[in-house]
């Protein structure tokens, strides 16, 4: 019989702690496959965040850091500047990257650190139990927005990919979703490009991945997929926001 599917050697063979229906597992696999396919495992260092994926260092079979909340891009900066031959990626959620770590991600991107950031946006704080994230949708229920997110009080959700793409420093910035096979394939392609730019020493790269959280959204996995498509995708448009080639051209034009 022909083997058409196997476990990714880059993921440690153990059960994860993620909830049923969570898409972190999908994203872990995409990142792990990419590292494997690019043949860079032996020079890759990953950085786990604080949040649901805090234990990511248990799952990626590469050298790993565990960073403090929001600081992964600074840790990545230190690691990459110290050993430029390493391939350094951070794996961060929306609370980690877009709230407490907003300063670190913006400045790492603006310096053009040659790192890759995997940004998982599921519009909620997962690990602490479903509080509002900077990416929580208008009107969305969370434990700290019991009447739904009121944009008059707390503002609108932050579009990180667009925010970072607005910086002048050349970068690769893209947004994909992981709720359907079709979008997962697109996500894989973006992740592959993001790592490839680092391998080539080209630029900072960030892939934002719209993700689901059935547990804290209070929906089934299937309902969550529909909710992501209906509520999140219009507000967070998928696609490539910035490419180093076009960014370089913009810089040249002044």
């Amino acid at each position, binding site marked *: 019989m022909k083997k058409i599917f196997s476990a990714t050697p880059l993921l440690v063979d153990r059960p994860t702690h993620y909830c049923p229906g969570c898409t972190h597992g999908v994203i872990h696999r995409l990142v792990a496959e990419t590292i494997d396919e690019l043949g860079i495992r032996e020079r890759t260092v990953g950085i786990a965040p604080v949040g649901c994926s805090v234990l990511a260092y248990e799952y990626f079979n590469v050298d790993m850091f565990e960073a403090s909340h929001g*600081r992964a891009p600074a840790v990545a900066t230190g690691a990459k500047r110290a050993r430029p031959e390493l391939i350094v990626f951070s794996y961060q959620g929306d609370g980690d990257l877009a709230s407490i770590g907003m300063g670190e991600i913006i400045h790492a991107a603006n310096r053009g650190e040659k790192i890759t950031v995997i940004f998982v946006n599921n519009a909620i704080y997962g690990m602490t139990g479903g509080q509002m994230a900077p990416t929580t949708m208008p009107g969305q229920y969370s434990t700290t927005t019991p009447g739904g997110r009121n944009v008059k009080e707390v503002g609108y959700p932050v579009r990180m990919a667009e925010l970072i793409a607005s910086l002048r420093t050349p970068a690769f910035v893209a947004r994909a979703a992981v709720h359907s096979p079709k979008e997962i394939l697109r996500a894989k392609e973006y992740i592959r490009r993001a790592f490839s730019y680092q391998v080539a020493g080209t630029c900072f790269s960030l892939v934002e991945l719209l993700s689901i959280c059935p547990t804290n959204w209070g929906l089934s996995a299937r309902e969550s997929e529909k909710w992501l498509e209906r509520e999140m995708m219009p507000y967070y448009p998928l696609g490539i926001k910035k490419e180093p080639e076009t960014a370089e051209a913009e810089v040249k034009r002044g």
Partner: protein
Amino acid sequence: MSKILMKGNEAVGEAAIRAGCLHFFGYPITPQSEVPEYLARRLPEVGGVFVQAESEVAASNMIYGAAGVGVRVLTTSSSPGISLMAEALSYIAACELPVVLVNMMRAGPGLGGILPAQGDYLQATKGTAHGDFHLIVLAPSSVQEAVNLVMRAFELAENYRNPVMVIGDGMIGQMMEPVEFPEPAVGKPLDPGDWALTGCKDRPRRIVNSLYLDPEACNRHNFKLTAKWQRITEAEQRSESVYLDEPCDILLTSFGMTYRICKTAADELRAEGIKVGLFRPITLAPFPYQACRAAADRAGRILDVEMNMGQMLEDVKLAVQGTKSIDFLGTAGGVVPSPEDVAKKIREVLGSAPAKNASPKPAPQKKRKDKERA
């Protein structure tokens, strides 16, 4: 090599390079900005890396990242900036990474002021950040000693895989004194050993982590760190005792630049026949309690002098165990005590309770008196 005249801050930067530290991440803050300025110029000349971080929060996490991949790394700051670095220092200590940081203290609390102070003694030695950990803390009292201790700090950091702080004040950062640097011009790089994240080629992967969700494992980790601190405490205490060959009327305890001021006061009074001894810890942590006690045993009484409201005073009391009267002279806010201030306080203290020999005497009740019995 001949002596050169150098600002303390610049000498700190050069000392790091001589120690083989080619990586600096930091953020400008008065009165230590000459360190990043100097290294921004010097590090590229020697193939090193200089990054101006967006904040002290980021800088301290950058040194976490750089140390984690096994390079020798430095950051420097001043009081408010050190507060912002506290979180990362807890992680670095927990992960047992070797880093060196320098705090050129300024006045506090809050934004305080930019002039010299010593108000971060307790922060450095006891309560840097959350959790059970210790920094090794070294306090130079001259620019040359700052050079020596920065270089020593890297050795200690690597020997024990523990963060080391060299603590000075705005005075030592801004003043110039002659210094000599050892050869070679650039020290050897750090051996990344069996812990650094260098890519898992031909070996199992490594993890730099301080998360222990299993309470037993976290408990064990705390005991391990504590055992290490015990070894450091036994092996690394350093101090200086001066004029204690014979019993003295009064012992001045102080650290860093304040020691120099006390030394001038002591010399002046000794010329008049008043026997003044001096003790200063060079390692603020581990604090040399036994040496401090031995110095106190030679003295009639003690005057502790600091540019704060009485922080090291607590350790002096612990060392002395209530066997001697202890008075305190403190200034803050950037007010530096003059040698005359110290001399006046000595006269006042001895006048109110003359101590002609080394036997402990009860002191009369008076304000600012810090007398304790064990």
